[in-house]
C-alpha cells in the first residue's frame, strides 16, 4: 500500500498527464462522412461484402435519425462532416512480433504505463491496444489460444472468425438502437473481440487500452464479447487522449453475450481528456454498452470509474432474458471544472427470478454537473424479480450540481424493488476532523471521496483499483481550497 501511496503522491501535482501527442506517420482520411468513406474503411480492412452492406445500411438509418436531446448535457452542436472517420498509424509491413511495432508507438504505450512487452508482463493481463482506430498489437495470444480463447482486434476477428462476428454483431445493440450506435455501426474502425468457449474460465484479465491520438479524429471502436455456456471472463478497458483545444468525438459500441451459466465481468476506467479548467476541449463520450444474459443462470457485471471526458453519455445495461440471471452495475462518476456526465444503467428483467443490483456514486466538484439516469424495467413474465438500487451523490463546493433520474417500470406484481438515494456535501466538520489529526486538506478530501466510493472500488480487479484511486486524486486536484 505504501508503494501505491507513493504513486498517488507523485500524481497529485500533475494535471492531465496523458495529454501528449505522438508524432507518428498517420494514414488518415480527410474529414467528412459519405458512402465513399464507409466503402474506403471497409476496403482498407478487406471486409467481406456482408459487412460492407451492414455498414451502409447503418449509414442510411443514421441519416434518418436525430441526435438524442433528453440527456442533461449542454454543448454546441457537433458537425459530423468535420470529423475524420479513419486514422491509423502507417504500417510499413505486416507485423510479426512486437519488435516490429513502431518504437514511437511503443513509447506512447510506455508513457501510458501499459507494458506491452510480454516479457515484462508479470501482472497476467493480456492487452489489446487500440491506437486511434486501429488495433496495434494483442499480447498473450498464444497462451489464450491454448484454452481456445479468442482475443484479438475486431478487424482480425472479421477475417479469422467471420461466422462468429456475423452471428453476434448488432445482436445486443441493433443499428437502429440510437443515433450514436447507428453512426458507430456505419464507421467503426476497430475494437476488441473476445470469445470464451464452453466451460472455460479465462485464466487472466483481458484488457484493452484505447487511445485517441490524431487531431480531429473520431474514435468509433466496437467491442464484442461472447461467453459460451459455463465460461467466465473478466475484461478491463482503459482509455486516454491528448489534450487538444477542440472537442473530439468518441462513440463506441460494446456488446456482451452471456450464455447459460456464463459470467462476464466488464470493468472500465475512463479517463479521456476532460478539457481544461475553463471547459475548453475534451472528449465527447457517447457510448452504448449493453449485455444480454441470454440463457439461465448467466451473469453480467459492469463496473465503471468515469473521471474523464468533457461530456459523458453512457448507460451500460443488462437485458436479463434467461431465468435466474443476474445483472450488476457499479459506478463511480467524478466530474470537475466544466465536465458534464449523464450516466447510469438500464436493467431489463424478462426472465423469471432475475435480479439486478445498481450502486452509483456521483462526485461533483468545480462547476460540473453529474447526473445519474437509470431505468429498471420488470416485464410481464419476470416472476419474482428483484432490484436493489442505491444512488449516492457527494458535492464539493457550491457551484456544482448532482441530479438523479431513476425510472421504474414494473409490469409484474411479484417484483421486489428497493431504491435508496442520498446527496451530501463534504462537510467542513469532516475536513476539520482530519486536519486535527494532521491530515492535510487535500488528503482529507481524497480520503473522504475514496471512502465514499469504496463499495464500487471493491468490485474492481486489484491493479485497476489502484489506478482508480490515482485517477480520483488527479481529478480532485484544485477542487478544494
Amino acid at each position: 500500500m505504501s508503494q501505491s501511496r507513493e504513486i498517488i503522491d507523485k500524481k497529485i501535482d500533475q494535471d492531465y498527464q496523458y495529454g501528449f501527442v505522438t508524432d507518428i506517420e498517420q494514414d488518415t482520411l480527410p474529414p467528412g462522412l459519405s458512402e465513399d468513406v464507409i466503402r474506403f474503411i471497409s476496403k482498407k480492412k478487406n471486409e467481406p461484402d456482408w459487412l460492407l452492406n451492414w455498414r451502409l445500411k447503418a449509414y442510411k438509418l443514421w441519416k434518418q435519425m436525430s441526435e438524442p436531446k433528453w440527456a442533461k448535457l449542454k454543448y454546441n452542436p457537433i458537425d459530423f462532416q468535420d470529423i475524420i472517420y479513419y486514422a491509423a498509424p502507417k504500417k510499413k509491413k505486416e507485423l510479426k512480433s512486437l519488435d516490429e511495432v513502431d518504437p514511437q508507438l511503443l513509447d506512447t504505450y510506455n508513457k501510458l504505463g501499459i507494458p506491452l512487452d510480454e516479457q515484462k508482463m508479470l501482472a497476467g493481463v493480456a492487452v489489446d491496444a487500440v491506437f486511434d482506430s486501429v488495433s496495434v498489437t494483442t499480447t498473450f495470444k498464444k497462451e489464450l489460444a491454448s484454452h481456445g480463447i479468442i482475443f484479438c482486434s475486431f478487424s482480425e476477428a472479421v477475417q479469422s472468425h467471420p461466422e462468429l462476428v456475423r452471428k453476434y454483431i448488432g445482436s445486443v445493440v441493433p443499428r437502429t438502437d440510437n443515433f450514436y450506435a447507428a453512426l458507430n455501426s456505419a464507421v467503426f474502425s476497430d475494437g476488441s473481440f473476445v470469445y470464451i468457449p464452453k466451460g472455460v474460465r479465462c485464466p487472466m484479465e483481458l484488457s484493452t487500452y484505447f487511445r485517441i491520438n490524431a487531431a480531429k479524429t473520431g474514435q468509433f471502436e466496437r467491442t464484442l464479447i461472447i461467453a459460451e455456456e459455463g465460461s467466465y471472463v473478466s475484461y478491463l478497458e482503459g482509455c486516454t487522449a491528448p489534450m487538444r483545444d477542440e472537442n473530439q468525438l468518441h462513440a463506441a459500441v460494446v456488446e456482451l453475450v452471456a450464455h447459460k451459466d456464463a459470467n462476464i465481468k466488464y470493468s472500465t476506467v475512463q479517463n479521456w481528456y476532460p478539457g481544461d479548467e475553463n471547459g475548453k476541449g475534451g472528449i465527447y463520450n457517447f457510448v452504448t454498452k449493453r449485455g444480454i444474459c441470454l440463457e439461465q443462470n448467466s451473469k453480467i457485471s459492469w463496473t465503471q470509474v468515469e473521471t474523464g471526458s468533457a461530456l459523458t453519455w453512457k448507460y451500460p445495461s443488462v437485458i436479463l432474458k434467461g431465468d435466474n440471471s443476474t445483472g450488476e452495475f457499479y459506478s463511480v462518476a467524478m466530474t470537475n471544472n466544466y465536465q458534464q456526465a449523464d450516466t447510469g444503467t438500464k436493467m431489463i428483467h424478462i426472465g423469471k427470478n432475475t435480479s439486478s443490483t445498481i450502486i452509483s456514486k456521483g462526485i461533483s466538484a468545480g462547476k460540473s454537473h453529474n447526473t445519474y439516469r437509470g431505468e429498471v424495467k420488470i416485464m410481464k413474465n419476470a416472476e419474482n424479480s428483484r432490484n436493489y438500487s442505491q444512488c449516492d451523490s457527494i458535492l464539493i463546493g457550491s457551484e456544482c450540481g448532482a441530479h438523479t433520474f431513476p425510472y421504474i417500470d414494473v409490469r409484474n406484481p411479484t417484483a421486489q424493488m428497493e431504491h435508496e438515494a442520498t446527496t451530501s456535501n463534504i462537510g467542513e466538520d469532516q475536513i476539520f476532523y482530519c486536519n486535527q489529526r494532521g491530515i492535510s486538506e487535500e488528503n482529507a478530501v481524497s480520503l473522504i471521496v475514496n471512502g465514499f466510493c469504496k463499495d464500487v472500488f471493491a468490485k474492481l480487479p486489484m491493479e485497476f483499483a489502484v489506478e482508480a484511486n490515482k485517477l480520483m486524486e488527479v481529478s480532485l486536484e484544485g477542487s478544494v481550497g
Partner: protein
Amino acid sequence: MMLTIKNLKCSIGEKEILQGINLDVRPGEVHAIMGRNGSGKSTLANVISGKETAEISSGTILYKGEDLFEKSTEQRALEGIFLSFQYPVAIPGVNITYFLKEAVNAKRRYLGQNELDAATFLQKIKEKLPLVDLDISFIKRAVNDGFSGGEKKRNEILQLLMLEPDLAILDETDSGLDIDALKIVSNGIKSYRSSEKSFVIITHYPRLLHYVKPDKVHILINGKIVKTGGPDLAELLEQKGYSWLES
C-alpha cells in the same frame, strides 16, 4: 511551559464568548476547565485547535513558546496538539486502520521519521486497543460510522494513544457515557499520563475528575475564569453547583 494563554478574547458575531482568559499549563500537568453549557468551554478548545468559528479580538496563545495563531490546524496537530472531540464526525467507508495510519504517518513525516509499515502499525495498534477495552475487529470499522456514544469516545482516546500528542484537549469526553464506559475512557487517559504530557480536560460535570485527578481546576463562567483551585474545587462544585460562583 506547554501552553500559555494570555488575555484571550474572542467573539462569535456580536457576542463576546471569551472575555480575557489566562492559563498556564506545564508539562505533566492535568488542568480541568469546568463550566456550564454556553460558558465558552468548547470555544476555547476550538481556538486552541485552530477551528475558525470564533473571531479572536485580542490575546495570545503560546504552545511550547511559539505563537499558535501563526499555525494551521494541521500544523498544530503535527506538532503535538490533540483534540478529543465532543461530537466526532463519521467518515463513511474509511476504516479506522487506514485513517489512523494516514494520521500517524503524516506526523512521522513531519517529524522526519520513517513511516510505519503496515505490520509495525498493526503491532502498535494491537498494543493500544486493550487500553480502551477494544478488540481488533473495531479497527476495521469506518471512522465513527454508526458508533455508539461510548465507542466514539473510546475511538478518540485510541487515536490519542496512537498519535502520542504532547498536549491533549479533551472536550466533554465524559458526556454521554455510562459508568462503565466512563471508567474505560478514564483508564485510557490515565495510561497516557506522564511527566511530559499535558492535558486540558473540558467538562461540565466533575465525574471524570473522580478517575483522572487534575492538578488544577478552573471554573469558567460567561467567558471568564472566575476561580482556580486544586481537585477539591471540583468536589465543592459537585456539592454546591455553579450558582454560588455567579454574583
